[in-house]
């Protein structure tokens, strides 16, 4: 696997091992165990409370990475559905002589059923082997996070982390790398910026060149922001264009003026004011 967690989106085994987040082989050989693939300090700790054996420690501060006390973990799986990040798996390398089981959260429809043959996938979603569903746990306290357990050949137990979804065709990972559109950096002047008044990049550049250096200045010259949405969509883009053109930071471009009504209002409603 090339790249890091930040490039791939998932941790490599090396990264997990280096962070001491991967149970020892010794522990794996004793039976099912939780593998917590959570390597970023984010403020979160439900897994700690979910484990009734006290096997997961987060403590204070709350951004600590969860630490598995592997000797205390029974592989019960209570933590799997509790993890808001869906990052906990139960791996049982002792399932049979040739097979291991992987339990993972699976929030898709349709749910597989026990005994169903499935395609097991790795962290990148690539099919690595066939598997069989041994258990589907979807009790109320899981709150719609079913935990699916699949049996797979043992040699894939460090890689397999989910199954291919049942309702979709195999992903076209290698979609045609050709394109029927060629990028032309020369002339994006006709690109729309203000969707309401159909004001283009070119119009705004011209206004800036003529001296507009505020959102209001651009608006008065081009009507960008004068349409139905009153600049709610384009004002930030306009401000960025001014900042870029004038080599200014964002704080040097003031907000455009706020005027009532902040949302459109029919004449009849205002006219109904009893106080006029």
């Amino acid at each position, binding site marked *: 696997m090339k790249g890091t967690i*930040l490039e791939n989106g*998932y941790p490599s085994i090396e990264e997990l091992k280096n962070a001491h987040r991967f149970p020892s082989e010794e522990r794996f050989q004793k039976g099912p165990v939780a593998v917590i693939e959570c390597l970023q300090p984010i403020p979160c700790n439900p897994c700690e409370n979910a484990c009734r054996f006290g096997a997961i420690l987060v403590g204070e*501060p709350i951004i600590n990475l969860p630490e598995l006390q592997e000797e205390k973990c029974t592989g019960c799986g209570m933590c799997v559905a509790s993890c808001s990040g869906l990052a906990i798996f139960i791996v049982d390398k002792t399932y049979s002589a040739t097979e291991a089981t992987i339990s993972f959260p699976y929030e898709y429809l349709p749910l597989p059923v026990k005994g169903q043959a499935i395609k097991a996938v790795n962290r990148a979603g690539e099919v690595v082997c066939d598997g069989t569903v041994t258990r589907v746990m979807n009790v109320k306290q899981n709150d719609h996070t079913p935990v699916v357990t699949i049996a797979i050949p043992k040699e894939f137990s460090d890689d397999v982390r989910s199954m291919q979804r049942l309702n979709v065709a195999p992903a076209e990972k290698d979609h045609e790398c050709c394109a*029927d*559109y060629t990028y032309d950096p020369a002339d994006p002047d006709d690109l729309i910026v203000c969707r309401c008044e159909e004001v283009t990049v070119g119009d705004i550049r011209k206004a800036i060149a003529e001296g507009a250096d505020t959102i209001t200045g651009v608006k008065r010259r081009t009507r960008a922001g004068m349409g139905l949405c009153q600049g709610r969509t384009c004002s930030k883009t306009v401000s960025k264009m001014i900042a870029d053109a004038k080599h200014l930071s*964002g704080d040097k471009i003031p907000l455009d003026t706020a005027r009532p009504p902040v949302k459109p209002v029919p004449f009849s409603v205002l006219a109904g004011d009893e106080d006029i």
Partner: protein
Amino acid sequence: MLVNRQVAIIGGGPAGLTAAIEAAKVGAQVLIIDENARPGGQLFKQIHKFFGSKAHNAGVRGMDIGLNLLKETEESGAETWLNSTVIGLYEGNRLSVVRTMEDGSKKIHTVQAEKILIATGSQENTINFDGWTIPGVMGAGCAQTMINVNRVMPGTKALMVGSGNVGLMVSYQMLQAGIDVLGVVEAAPKISGYNVHAAKICRAGVPFYLRHTIIHAEADESGTLCRATIAALDEKWNPSPNTEQSFDVNLVCIAAGLRPLAKLAQMYGVEHGFIPELGGWMPLHDENMETNIQGIYVAGDTAGVEEANTAMDEGRLAGISIAQSLQLLPDQEAEQCKAEIRARLESLRLGPFGERRLQAKNRIVKKEVQL
């Protein structure tokens, strides 16, 4: 018609509701005004389980937190006007409100309140590329609203632009709704949201295109999106020739961050500061969420874009501060509650993802923002 209330809360999202609950439960006369048919703001499209600790409702889905807040709000005795839009904020703490009456008719009301909380949330940023106005290109939050709130498929094959938490979570939720996500495009050299969110969609086989940007969207004869093209970025962040790749998609989602919605505060002359970490221009506030104008408070994304958990705690902070200043809560008790909330907020802003926000918030409260 002139209506007087002690507290008016504009926006019944996570911040507005928690503020209303805190203020109303100690006896404040609270009016919540919300533009939508149902309060809860963006909580009801957040169908994932929240992070945080037990005190932050960790592990509970946003939509369920929303249901609980609605129940608590009702029990607190706060009054709610739904389908009602605040169109202006004028001198003397007067709000101009277009209220939808029970018979469906709309009437203009003036609401005068001693304390006003502006909790109007945020709005998605966008990026401009050739074809970005074609129907089928939309904000990631828009797609999320369609699938999770309206339960409608905005497309069947999608490309996500942006790998922040919104981009990652909405990609996942699109997969859950049965939409094929062909890829996540990100201009930066690394994924910017939480790894655990990225890992979920990786396992579903969704590829990332880092150092890429979308350059073109194409419509079919019906005028709607049928194809999108991306290209790799060079070291100057410009698309490089001969790296284009096209995808047959009918949905492109833009997840380019959010910015505070604070037009009402701006209209009332509330001091604003430019805080890039929190979405750009935003109303400034003190440690009680009060702005430079006495009696005007802000909370939630309006007071700097973060997430629903911080919004709820900021709302509570504002609600308690309001109750305290109305002398409905003894100072000692109020200060203790506020200290607890501030500690919770601080813990939510720890770590590499929250650090910049924490520092920005500290700068704001210590009034170290350059104006």
